[in-house]
């Protein structure tokens, strides 16, 4: 690994200033589990690393029935998995966080770092997209709030400007009849990175789907909503047949990656099955 300047801001504004001063070759460093790996492999050779570990208060997780869930950027995956309010009110989000990567990585890796890295082959972005999450970015000119959907631009590319920092993730308050599920598909149990991830949330209103949100990730360049499948389910009665058709519609909407981990055809077939299963799990329907 090449040497680099190690900068230790003690506030977000300090960190923004350092990023602005250091320019394009500087990288923000949170837990380090992804960036350090890229640096060791010389995929990333930053001249300066701006370390957020000494910035207080960025790891807070707060829940309020009217305001919803706020997760600080430096909250670790293990903290999210263990948080009582998340486990109670967004159980599939806690379950997802409990499965990211592997246990030691979950103790180091942060949610903000995960989202900003832009690697498609991971779980949090897809699950949070299905929950209509937004992200708060702070830069030299103040704060802005983006829908997570608009935060992702392309493969490993986000909407973050050079000196901007993602400081918080916000999830809207859960509807009383909120249902949801997140399923990650691994080719073998020994793998830590999903081939495909699907998040489904909805309101389950006396047998009918309302406010359906279907997010697909890991097999596409950036996590995406399956809007046609969502429209198909909206207001529809939940049955094994409608969920199976929903899976087929969603799979047809994606333009999958094709690489050593799986061909586009393969990923599309898996998507059909996993969307169906995630929807079935969300609505409590017993089907394969």
């Amino acid at each position, binding site marked *: 690994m090449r040497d*680099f300047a190690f900068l230790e801001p003690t506030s977000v504004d300090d960190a923004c200033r350092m990023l602005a001063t250091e320019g394009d070759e500087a990288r923000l460093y949170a837990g380090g589990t992804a960036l350090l790996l890229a640096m060791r492999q010389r995929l990333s050779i930053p001249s300066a690393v701006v370390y957020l570990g000494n910035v207080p208060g960025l790891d807070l997780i707060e829940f309020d029935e009217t305001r919803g869930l706020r997760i600080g950027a430096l909250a670790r995956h293990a903290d999210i998995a263990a948080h009582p309010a998340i486990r109670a009110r967004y159980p599939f989000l806690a379950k997802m966080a409990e499965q990211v990567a*592997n246990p030691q990585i979950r103790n*180091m890796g942060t949610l903000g770092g995960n989202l900003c890295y832009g690697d498609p082959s991971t779980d949090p972005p897809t699950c949070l997209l299905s929950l209509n999450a937004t992200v708060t970015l702070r830069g030299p000119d103040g704060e802005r709030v983006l829908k997570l959907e608009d935060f992702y631009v392309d493969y490993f590319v986000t909407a973050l400007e050079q000196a901007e920092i993602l400081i918080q993730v916000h999830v809207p308050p859960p509807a009383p009849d909120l249902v949801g599920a997140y399923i990650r598909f691994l080719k073998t149990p020994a793998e830590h990175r999903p081939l495909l991830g699907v998040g489904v949330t909805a309101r389950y209103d006396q047998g009918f789907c309302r406010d359906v949100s279907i997010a697909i990730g890991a097999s596409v360049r950036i996590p995406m909503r399956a809007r046609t499948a969502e429209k198909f389910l909206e207001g529809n009665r939940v049955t094994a047949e409608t969920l199976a058709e929903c899976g087929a519609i969603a799979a047809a909407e994606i333009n999958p990656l094709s690489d050593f981990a799986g061909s586009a055809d393969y990923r599309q077939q898996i998507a059909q099955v996993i969307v169906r299963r995630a929807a079935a799990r969300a609505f409590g329907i017993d089907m394969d």
Partner: protein
Amino acid sequence: MEKHSIDVIVNGDDYTLEVPARRLLADFLRDDLGLTGTKRGCETGICGACTVSVDGKAVKSCIMLAIQARDKQVLTIEGLSDRDGKLHPLQQSFIERGGLQCGFCTPGFIMTAYVFLAQVPSPREEDIRAALTGNLCRCTGYVGIVESILAAAEKMSGS
């Protein structure tokens, strides 16, 4: 090369050292402190041979900078036995139950298990298997490892 001063407690001992920013925690432990029980395996955050405890949490020291351990408490496999050399029940159990063959992954497994048992003193077998998903063994097939941890948990919570 700019050096950074770090204070860190490793296995109960205070250290103050100057290290370059790029020094990995694994290299710091092995090369600077001579604690070679912590292994460098895959060096990509997968195999878990480099697992140590930092402030009571299991982490992989190959994808963590030494500077990130500043002002923290690090525990390595060398810190598990008594000062007079008496092995920790987990170590003893791995010997008695055949929880290892070549032994390279063993410090990582034992440190992961040590932190896990501190949180879950009486685990089910499936809990142990879930806790070990960040550690790879290429010799044993895991049965001996899981049995060793179960036996150690019984001994530790029973005595």
